[in-house]
């Protein structure tokens, strides 16, 4: 068993890592849900879109003219609706058999044979109009084959996105057949909207486009105002003076190790280590190179000393501080280093990242996750080293607990927790003391 403090810290670190992973997963799952839903057939919208401008429009050649239904239409539709409801009651349970759509008749229109595939938008719109005039109850469900209904060969609209624009387009005398039997499900028109087939016809609504372009413009203005900060140097000076005044009014030293500086030193450490590796690996061919290598290593040693000195004087300061301050501080477990510098300028608007194939995108995304995972692993490795190695070197007794700890530590530290080593005693005659 590990000591309490050590346990607490390590468990907190690992839980932290697990939580951040879980958060990513949550966000990913949400995106997946949305994307999958978009690629399926789109369900009917719950509320009709109020805009008069073209939304998801399939047949753009439809001349649309808004027209309120005439009273006679309304009466006929009333009858229609009642008949339909009756049929629903009759055929309860089968109405979801899926698939036969029906159209509402228009009064007085002699039929030119309008097939199911005939100008669907007009009839659709007529139907939607009708449906809006009288909010139907069971009517939206796909309809059973009309031939099953004695005397009523009714056609009813069931298609979603177009119900949305029902208010708009209505051709009362569109040459629609009055009572057509819609052929069976097998040959029916797939009226559901899928992105695959008709995605290229979508258009964004006008209001949204305006708002989005205004948004982009404002962000651009804001960012140019920041980067070209000579716009108002008077304000910049005033701010610096204010800060200085605050500082002197409080009367205390301001040399504190900021988070940015810690990050800088972390970067320094990794750059120095990298450089050292390079020098140690290099094979000097002649004395100039040897001497140069020696000088470089000595220089690196000096730089490391400087960084340590800076850190250590702050560590002393910190221990003084900790004694005096009380109260909670929003301090969690030490976080993995922010590679880019979290205090950097906020990113104003995202850049464009251009890719040309799904494969490319997948590679990129996989790499990005891999880098994030490695970052986390490096951090965890350092934390584990800091906690476990001292523990192992402190414990003296050569017994089972120590061996078990050593083996587990090796697994965690050296094999990323994936493989174990085996320990054998060299003297089989010795009895092992019970743990």
């Amino acid at each position, binding site marked *: 068993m590990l000591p309490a403090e050590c346990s607490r810290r390590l468990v907190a670190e690992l839980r932290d890592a697990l939580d951040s992973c879980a958060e990513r997963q949550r966000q990913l799952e949400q995106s*997946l849900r949305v994307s999958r839903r978009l690629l399926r057939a789109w369900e009917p919208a719950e509320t009709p879109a109020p805009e008069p401008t073209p939304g998801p429009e399939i047949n753009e050649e439809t001349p649309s003219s808004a027209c309120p239904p005439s009273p006679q239409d309304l009466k006929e539709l009333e009858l229609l609706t009642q008949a339909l409801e009756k049929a629903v009651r009759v055929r309860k349970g089968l109405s979801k058999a899926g698939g036969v759509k029906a159209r509402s008749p228009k009064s007085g229109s002699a039929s030119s044979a309008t097939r199911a595939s005939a100008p669907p938008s007009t009839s659709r719109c007529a139907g939607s109009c009708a449906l809006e005039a009288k909010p139907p109850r069971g009517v939206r469900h796909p309809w059973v084959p009309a031939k099953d209904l004695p005397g009523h060969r009714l056609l009813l609209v069931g298609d979603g996105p177009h119900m949305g624009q029902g208010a708009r387009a209505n051709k009362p005398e569109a040459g629609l057949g009055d009572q057509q039997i819609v052929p069976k499900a097998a040959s029916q028109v797939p009226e559901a909207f899928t992105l695959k087939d008709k995605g290229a016809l979508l258009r964004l609504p006008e209001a949204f486009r305006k708002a989005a372009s205004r948004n982009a413009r404002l962000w651009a203005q804001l960012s140019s105002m920041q980067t070209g900060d000579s716009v108002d140097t008077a304000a910049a000076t005033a701010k610096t003076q204010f800060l200085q005044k605050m500082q002197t009014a409080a009367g205390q030293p301001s040399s504190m190790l900021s988070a940015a500086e810690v990050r800088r030193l972390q970067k320094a450490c990794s750059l120095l280590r990298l450089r050292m590796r390079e020098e140690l690996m290099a094979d000097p061919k002649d004395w100039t190179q040897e001497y140069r290598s020696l000088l470089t290593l000595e220089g690196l040693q000096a730089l490391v000393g400087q960084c340590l000195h800076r850190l250590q004087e702050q560590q002393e300061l910190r221990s003084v501080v900790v004694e005096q301050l009380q109260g909670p501080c929003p301090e969690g477990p030490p*976080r993995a280093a922010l590679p880019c510098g979290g205090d950097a300028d906020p990113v104003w608007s995202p850049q464009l990242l251009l890719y040309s194939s799904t494969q490319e995108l997948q590679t990129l995304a996989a790499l990005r996750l891999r880098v994030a995972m490695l970052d986390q692993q490096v951090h965890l490795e350092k934390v584990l080293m800091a906690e476990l190695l001292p523990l192992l070197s402190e414990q003296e007794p050569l017994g089972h607990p120590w061996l078990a700890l050593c083996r587990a530590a090796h697994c965690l530290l050296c094999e990323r927790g994936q493989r174990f080593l085996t320990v054998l005693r060299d003297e089989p005659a010795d009895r092992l003391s019970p743990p």
Partner: protein
Amino acid sequence: MGRRRRRRPDPADAARALPEAIAALSRALPAAPSPETFRRAKFDRPEAAPALWRLLFRVLSPLPADGASASLALEAQARWVKSALRSQGYPRQALVQLPDEGFQGGRELLLALAWLLARGPLPERLLTQSRVRLGDEMPLCECEALASPGLPAPSVEAEGCVDIRHLQWLMGKLRLRWRNLMAGQQEQCALLGQIHAYTRGCHSDRSLGHLSVTETELLRDPKGGRQLLLQLETENARLEAALEWRRRELVFWQWMDTVLDACPPEASLPTFLPRIPKLGAGAAGLLVRELQALQEELREAVEARRAAWQAAVGGHGPEWRAARRALQTAVAQDLAALQRAWEQDEGRSRPHGPCRLVRTEARVPGGPGLWAAGVTEALRAREACLEAVLSQLQSQCRQELARLAGARPGLIWILPPAH
């Protein structure tokens, strides 16, 4: 406040400038109190304080305001604000000495807010955090993910001792989560690719060319689309307020000077020192250990080479001295360049920040934008670098463990086969 721009004599203009600046600020910040509250705060009126505590809490907390954090009692929020300010190095003690109940000290709170505003582009940063994302974004670095550590969760407390096997189990769990994540991510990319391909040609913005998931979703679900539009419009209003604030802020700073002057001078407590920010405590400790290890390695290497050099130095001629000086200068420049690499903020060299994904068939760089191939290369380099660091740390551990094991005779250690 009114935004009428009639021609007025100067004094009235000047008198209006400050309220308008404060009004702009109040519109630009999230959940800011009315401009009247600011004025009351200057005179230390008690009703101003709670609003300013809440504003500071909202501004300082890294997460966007959600139900959990917003419902914290005023007292808890006040305490949190105090420690957050302390960890950023806020200089004034008077704030810390304010009672937690939150009804006093409007002026101090006003000064704290001004201090935060002076240090960096605060309204802009807040706007960036809560930005409406219209495109499909992929963050190229982990800044945003890591920058929101969240409020301290006191749930994990008093765990007691754990067996190391528990840690192994947690590590395995972590590995599994990453694997699931990566698989899910691949699927998401495939779906995105399809959506982008199917909606090609739909976008009014030619440089984008196709719709993003958000935009397609707004077409599919008009209700959600209206909400998105509302959010956009709110953001636009705040952006305009931020721009106006930037134009007018000078008069605010002049006013803050008077506020500061109105405060009684603080008794200087030389022993009061702000705490190192939250990144400091543990990370600095780790860093110290790393640097010490590095120093040790360097020392050994240098000693060995210096000894070898001294032994061989005799056999060099007079041109040696000049050459030596040249080498010394060269190395010094080299190391200075290395030092510059971390001293200066080189955040731009690495791909940074979220990017909007755009699928394109084009081969020519039409406008500003990163190419996926380039970013992939950069990421591969970073991956290699991190792998190197990790394996170096692992070999360090192996050596240390071998040393410890070697100290105990009578055991045979069979290492797992190297892959």
